């Protein structure tokens, strides 16, 4: 057990790793009533192509299988999992994203029983033809709900324009066809490949006694046998440098057009601290160039080209990265043209003038992170998977220099790597 205290933030992080490889992270929060636990599995919608640890065969799974598996683990032989938590006064939930599946509950009493419940249901799969069939109906409704969401639609159109090979182009829940093709056997294969304690992290937040909790989990895990498989080898086909498509257009029943623009950023081999630092640098840069205090934002707002639906951000993972700008507008052509124009020719003086202030804003947002358990857990796991503890972020932000922003400002907005996704309203 290792305990790290951050004096500035007055926050503590306790870490432990069990013999079976399960990582435990605890933020003890004195005086808080809420208790929060998240079991995060390093398996997301991107992990569809991998070498089966059991027999060395390559597996190509239907799209949306990680999300399906998340739904399916809530099925139990007798009692509803939701009821088991509800009986303890806790409420359970789960979500799947590109790179992880996360099971969580929040409670205000009976934390230890709820925690054992969480671990037990994730570690006890039960997939039958009957319950898999039932879940398909539910997930198809979920997919249809996303299809009516113009932001979601145009976001995935954008990703499919950016990437021709990388699985991030696929919708997290998959398609109606892919979901209908999923079998219990597929689920078991994914389960024994990815749902190993060594491929999971447990994050706990609340007024907790770390030593006691760790002992409790250790005892629980010692009773179980896990096959000594290595973690699975994922296959990500090499992504060409070029974008897949320059433009995707679609029509939907909406009030006004939606424009999404992205710049594909080629990835190199970088260490985790570099990845995170670059993510911050480019986000700072975007805030200076197109944030709500920027000259550009206010000029285009004034011309009625953008409004407060506009936003921009940069996303960076070890295997993909892109700049993302989007907004609703009645002047889609002008918005596309202006955004391009402004980004391709960035004024260095503007960066110099605004750098310190925007950095300060990021220091403030780092402090805020510790206010909200759900947000803290999801951000923590993001950085943890890259090998960085969240306290280190403060120093990473502090270390950012003006020169680094200036250097990226000339490189990252390359028109050749730009794609656009437009949703127009139906006539």
């Amino acid at each position: 057990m290792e305990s790290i205290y951050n004096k500035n933030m007055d926050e503590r992080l306790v870490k432990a790793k069990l013999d079976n490889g399960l990582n435990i992270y605890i933020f003890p929060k004195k005086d808080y009533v809420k208790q929060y636990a998240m079991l995060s599995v390093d398996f997301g919608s991107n992990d569809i192509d991998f070498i089966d640890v059991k027999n060395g065969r390559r597996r190509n799974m239907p799209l949306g299988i990680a999300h399906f598996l998340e739904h399916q683990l809530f099925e139990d032989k007798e009692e509803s999992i939701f009821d088991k938590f509800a009986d303890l006064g806790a409420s359970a939930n789960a979500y799947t994203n590109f790179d992880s599946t996360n099971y969580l509950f929040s409670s205000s009493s009976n934390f230890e029983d709820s925690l054992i419940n969480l671990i037990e249901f994730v570690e006890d799969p039960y997939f039958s033809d009957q319950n898999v069939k039932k879940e398909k109906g539910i997930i198809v409704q979920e997919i249809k709900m996303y299809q009516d969401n113009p932001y979601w639609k145009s976001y995935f159109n954008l990703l499919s324009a950016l990437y021709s090979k990388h699985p991030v182009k696929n919708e997290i829940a998959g398609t109606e066809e892919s979901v209908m093709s999923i079998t219990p056997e597929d689920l078991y294969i994914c389960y024994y490949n990815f749902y190993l304690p060594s491929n999971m992290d447990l994050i706990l937040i609340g007024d907790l006694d770390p030593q006691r909790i760790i002992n409790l989990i250790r005892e629980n895990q010692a009773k179980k046998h896990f096959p000594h498989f290595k973690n699975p080898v994922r296959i990500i086909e090499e992504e060409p440098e070029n974008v897949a498509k320059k433009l995707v257009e679609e029509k939907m029943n909406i009030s006004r057009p939606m424009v999404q623009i992205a710049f594909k950023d080629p990835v190199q081999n970088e260490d985790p601290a570099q990845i995170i630092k670059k993510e911050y640098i480019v986000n700072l840069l975007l805030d200076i160039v197109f944030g709500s205090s920027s000259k550009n934002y206010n000029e285009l707002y004034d011309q009625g080209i953008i409004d407060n639906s506009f936003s921009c951000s940069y996303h960076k993972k070890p295997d993909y990265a892109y700049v993302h700008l989007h907004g609703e507008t009645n002047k889609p052509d002008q918005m596309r043209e202006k955004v391009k124009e402004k980004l391709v020719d960035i004024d260095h003086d503007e960066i110099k003038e605004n750098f310190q202030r925007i950095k300060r804003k990021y220091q403030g947002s780092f402090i805020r992170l510790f206010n909200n358990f759900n947000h803290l857990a999801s951000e923590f796991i993001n950085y943890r998977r890259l090998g960085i503890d969240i306290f280190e972020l403060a120093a990473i932000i502090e270390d950012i220099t003006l020169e680094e922003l200036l250097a990226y400002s000339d490189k990252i907005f390359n028109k050749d790597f730009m794609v656009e996704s437009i949703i127009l309203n139906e006539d």
Partner: protein
Amino acid sequence: MNDLEFKTEENRFNLHHLATDKFKTNLVQIFFMLPLKNEKEAAMNALIPSVLERGSKNYNDNQLIKTELENLYGSNMSSNILKRGENQILRFSLEMVNEKFLTHKSNLTVDAFNLLNDIIFNPLTERGKFKQRFFEQEKEILKQDILSLINDKYSFAVENCLTRMCKNEKYGIYKMGTVSALAKISNQELYDHYQKIIEEAKRSLFLVGNFKSSFVENIFENTNLEAGADIFDENTEAVYQDKDVDFYEQELRVNQARLSIGFRTGITRKDPDYYSLLVFNSLIGGSTHSRFFQEIREKRSLAYYVSSSIESTKGLLLVNSGINAENHKKVIEVVKNEIAAVIKGKFSQDEFLRSKKSIINHLKQDLDSNKSLSAHFLLSLVNNKEESIKKTIAGVEAVDEDDIIAVAKKLKMDTIYLLKSEE
């Protein structure tokens, strides 16, 4: 640990202060209560904060305001229009990090508060009106906001159900008004209306966090917020009537049909039955352990989402679900049957206890969020029943099975709305 209760400061007008050092941030909120009268006024009330946020005398454009907020370590300032019963509530919020977590000395709270005060009370004017350009631009943006309801099919269905259900009541007015009413507003009218709000509207000031005593003591010297009545609702008519159920259908090109069913509960937060209603809602549709979720989603696989929620100032309960249109009768049938089952007392002790625990769990968790603490207190204040979370929990604890049955019996189905795809 303190009790996390709002104290209404003696001799200070409408200052509700919850002192705690639990959070990393401090929260200031100023509320104005605006009774719903007609669509034009609703649109004016929604437009005013957007125009104010464009610029004040000392911070005369958006860029300057945003720059100042960033200087203040990314403080957040925002305004919202809420609908509580037959009132719009105009809420200005300011949240800033607590100075004690900063490595540099800073006068953050006072500086941020001065900015907020300037935005609300010191607008940029031209010839006795708002700056014309701000007025025109924000009017256009609000128009787009009203129209954009259709982009979110969940809210679109909810609002369409409620406006039809309450078509003869003030509650049927959309919280941002309508496009046609908005078009009729002139800058002069808007400015006059703004002044009327500042002078006459009911108002309240909330503080949640670790504020210096000098800041709290001098707060009214640092703001132009004048004395006035607190934000107690005297406007809402809680309609509760026997009638035939209305059924409305609307066609749009959608992938998923949306079903909304509106009920009258006849119960508001002021009523002793309120706590029973909370438990009833949890049992029938408020959560994943609830009857609707279990019967409609888990057993019959008819929906991804199905839930119920209550409006406790007007006395409504709404059931929402996303389904295949051809299943809508089946879903309505299940909803009716499950309510009928509760009336007959057909629910287990376990279900009953779960429902109570779930409510209590959520209420307790509200103690850990400054915004939830504020939202809870706001609702109790609006309903003229100032109540701490602890007291609400005690009320829920006291509910028994018969109380649930009594609430189920009171429920009256009023309106069904179905949004489905074009034939």
